[in-house]
């Protein structure tokens, strides 16, 4: 039994190495004094300083963050409203709506990206920030639906009816009784959307036109001629800040769980 446990630990450890090895490489590269990623030129913090002077990277960063934030917000509102509506629908319309949200999840990104580009061109809309934003909202909505739907299944209709019975308006009853139950799903839908938007390349690639860059498209454009070391520094900063944030949230959740137990 004990050797099995050790073997399991080794296996999990190997998979973790596999998942995190490239991240380690990128962090190391961000401290590499040599501009070429092929050789180690000594330790430096130079790129972290130069990063903030690099206007192209900074504008790509602000585009990326703004699109992630806005698309996550819009997707969360539209998706959550849809789930609320679904709870009162008959089986057939409900199935149609969930299938609709499955399409972008299961479809190839390249097809989604290309098809959105065709639509924007067909209605003479200029490719650029707005087109990218619409694209991101579109692929984010299903993530919200997927996160909120299970929470909706757990809600109890008699509590809601009791609130109505006691004189609450439907809106008030919803906000006081149902919304708190949905909240964890809504929050995780928002975070998931934000993450997916930050990490997206393909949809942005086809809808951005020539005007704007996000971090992903900037990196792709640099792939051939060599990535600027500032980019490694920026991604290290982003990664570390998310890591720290997650550790704080996790610690707080654990402390709360402990408190509840006592």
């Amino acid at each position, binding site marked *: 039994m004990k050797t099995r446990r050790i073997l*399991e630990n080794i*296996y*999990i450890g190997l*998979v973790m190495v596999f*998942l995190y*090895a*490239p991240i380690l*490489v*990128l962090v190391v590269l961000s401290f590499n004094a040599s501009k070429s990623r*092929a050789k180690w030129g000594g330790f430096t913090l130079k790129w972290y300083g130069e990063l903030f002077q690099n206007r192209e990277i900074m504008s790509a960063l602000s585009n990326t963050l703004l699109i992630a934030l806005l698309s996550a917000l819009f997707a969360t*509102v*539209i*998706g959550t*409203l*849809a*789930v*609320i*509506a*679904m*709870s*009162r*629908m008959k*089986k057939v319309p409900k199935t149609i709506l969930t*299938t*609709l949200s499955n*399409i*972008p999840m*299961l*479809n*190839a*990104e*390249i*097809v989604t990206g*290309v*098809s*959105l580009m*065709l*639509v924007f061109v067909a209605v003479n809309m200029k490719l650029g920030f707005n087109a990218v934003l*619409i694209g991101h*909202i*579109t692929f984010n*909505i299903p993530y919200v639906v997927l996160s909120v*739907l299970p929470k909706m*299944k757990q809600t109890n209709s008699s*509590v809601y009816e009791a609130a*109505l019975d006691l004189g609450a308006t439907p809106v008030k009853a919803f906000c006081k009784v*149902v919304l708190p139950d949905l909240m964890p799903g809504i929050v995780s839908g928002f975070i998931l959307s934000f*993450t997916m938007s*930050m*990490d997206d*390349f393909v949809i942005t690639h086809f809808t951005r036109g020539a005007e704007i860059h996000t971090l992903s498209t900037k*990196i792709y454009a640099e792939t051939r001629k060599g990535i600027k070391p500032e980019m*490694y520094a920026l*991604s290290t900063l*982003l*990664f570390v800040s*998310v890591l720290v944030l*997650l550790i704080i949230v*996790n610690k707080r*959740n654990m402390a709360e769980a402990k408190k509840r137990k006592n």
Partner: protein
Amino acid sequence: MRERFKRKMQTSGVFRQLLAGPYIVWMVAFIVIPLLLIAYYGFTVKTDDGLRFSLSNLTLIANPINLKALGLSLELSLISTIICLILAYPIALMLRNRNVGSDSFVIMIFMLPMWMNFLLRTIAWQNILEKTGVINSLLSVFGIKPLNLINTSGAIVFGMVYNFLPFMILPIYNVLVKIDQNVINAARDLGANAFQTFIKVILPLSVPGMISGITMVFVPSLTTFVISSILGGSKIVLIGNVIEQQFKFLGNWNAGSGLSLVLMIFILISMALVSIYDKDDVKGF
């Protein structure tokens, strides 16, 4: 009083269904119509006197270069899906048996790498696999000749497995944690050994998770053009690269759409598979 309450419930039901309005409008405008537009482009060709119906974009797939790209895409994505399944299942099972605490912690471990940009992570594998890269440097310490790892089909499979493994682990894990421990205990009580319990109880119950994992890995692997262009060099062309070229560089949207339609046949097959196993119903408040 009862009448009034009933009426209140009914109006709130109608009102509530209207909340799906923005969603329906949005999904029709940016999912359904775009797909119809792909079909429109795919079935037409540009001629001197306007667009004309044609099947020539679809038959482009029979062109030896495109056919080879599609074949290679199918082969590599199938291989990486199988590898992902083999790697992911034990991990999901171990995480379930360990009761790691919260599900959110498990999700966090596998989502966290996504905060390092996907392209950069794939480029980092270049560093590791290169002729002068990390692996070959390590090998040379032991006096082993450098291996030719980068710019091969193997490197592409490697990149696919790396990028999509979490999408196999999470759905399987989600199904496994929902299996009632009592069901497993009952099987053991009735005399099944660990292996029999796994084959007869756990494995069948986890099929929906495996199906959704398989499609979540297979479709993006089949259609990628980024992984192949970063890890496969310029010589290895997948069907995703062909389509991207048609749209971004050759400007032949009709041909690109036609090839996308062919590709979608495979996507539709996987979607059909998912819908067979996904029979969940939403109720609630």
